[in-house]
């Protein structure tokens, strides 16, 4: 079973089909989209976006691992770093709004009509 050539290959790659990972990532992504579309609390929406980003990370790492190509993982590294910067700014905006309105429900913010 442990042939010489496949010795270095992680078990998961031999045992789990890549589709399953793609499905998992897609499911997370869709859950994230549902969150963005249905929730009205800005922070929860933002968390759903983070969920989407994580599904992307999972997808990239999967492809990277199955292809044994480092580019995908480096990309994930950047996504994580950039997400941190985005979170910093996003939360600052939320704090700012809370200061002015005492609410962060996007539904309450209807000064501008859709």
């Amino acid at each position: 079973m442990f042939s010489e050539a496949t010795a270095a290959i992680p078990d998961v790659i031999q045992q789990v089909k890549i589709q399953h990972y793609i499905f998992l990532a897609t499911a997370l992504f869709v859950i994230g989209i549902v969150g963005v579309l249905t929730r009205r609390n800005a922070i929860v929406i933002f968390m759903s976006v983070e969920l989407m980003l994580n599904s992307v990370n999972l997808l990239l790492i999967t492809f990277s691992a199955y292809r044994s190509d480092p580019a995908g993982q480096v990309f994930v590294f950047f996504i994580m770093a950039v997400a941190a910067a985005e979170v910093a700014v996003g939360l600052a905006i939320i704090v700012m709004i809370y200061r002015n309105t005492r609410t962060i429900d996007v539904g309450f913010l209807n000064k501008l009509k859709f």
Partner: protein
Amino acid sequence: MLPIVLLSVFGIVVLFLGFSKSKNILLPATLLFLLVTLIANFVDWNHQYLYFNDMLWGNNASMVFSGIVLLSAFFVVALTRGFEQEGEAAQPAEYYGIMLFSLVGAIMMISYENLIILFVGVEILSVSIYILTGSDKRNLRSNEAALKYFLMGAFATGIMLFGMALMYGATGSFVISDISEIIGTRAWNEQSQLLYAGLLMLLVGLLFKVSAAPFHFWTPDVYDGAPTIFTAYMSTIVKTAGFAALYRLLAGSLASLQDYWFATLATITVLTLLAGNVTAVYQTSFKRMLAYSSISHAGYLLIALTSLTAKSQSSILFYSLAYSLSTVSAFGVLILVSQQQASNNYDAFNGLAKKNPFLAFVLAVSMLSLAGIPLTAGFMGKLFVFTDAAQKGTIWLLVVAILASAIGIYYYFRVLIAAYFKEGDLATIRIAPFYKVVLIIVTTLTIVLGLFPDLVLQLV
């Protein structure tokens, strides 16, 4: 490469110049820096460059795109007047610094070769603009615009990244030329679903940024809520950079799949044209109308993109230049008028021509150019874009576009009617000499480019 370095350094310098006692130095310094960058932008002229292990790629066209972005930024910055009228709460050094930094993102979006540069560029530009949108901290509309833009932008980024991930899964690379090569060899056939879905999501993410329908719903609120000067900034720079990025993606790596994405993109084009133009008719606020007009112009630019002929690039280039110039001057006039009248509505312009013939003339040229009346740059831009569609042979797209531009006349002329034909009590507006010079230059450029489009076209 050089402009990116320069802009980063200059951004930091401006940020720290804010600590000096004399605030008056900020505006000239920023303008000088932008000018230096604009010149430095063209050092690689006539060379096709590829920097840092296939990260940045550029040729004359991308340099001209960067030039347009820098030029628009220059004009917008010139119209800020140092934010002196914003009062104590304004933090000009930060605003200028972030504006300079955001241009780094724009240039990255224009000349990326690796998708990671596109991603980081999009983020740099977007994050800067979230901040600028919310910079009027006490104004609830500005706050809300920032939040909305931020949430929608982050959402779009998520979708775009998912697309990139899928494309990576299908082709195993993030490099534009590699992807193109792999698609060319059709070695991706087995993963075609990944590629198609990825391509679609990547496009959706980018189309979000350039506010194409049906991903445009955030635009009016955000444009309306943001401080006017930053609305001008984002409606010119984000749009130009976004379209350059889209062109680079489609022409650079996905041209051979045109059969696949053509129908989707063409549908989006039609939707954008209709959504932008039809909704713009119902607006009572000039600023909101400009927001919808920016959507409709995204539609015209999409025509060139959808057609993707040999000439598309120069069409997009010329169109975005024409659009940027006219938009800058329209916002320039709007800033002055809305300050006087404390309103962004059409009524605010009533009787503008009587006491302020210069402003009315600038407004007229810019509206004519946006409407695409001959002898202005906007007309030439529209003509080039339409000819692209004709070259591709999509007559129905052309018909929709022409109908849309006919609708456009109506709402662009409403403000002219207000300015010229209506009676109003608008007093003479004092225009700072420098402000006036900028408006004169922009207006002159609009007319000159309408007469001699060759000046720009022969660069590419």
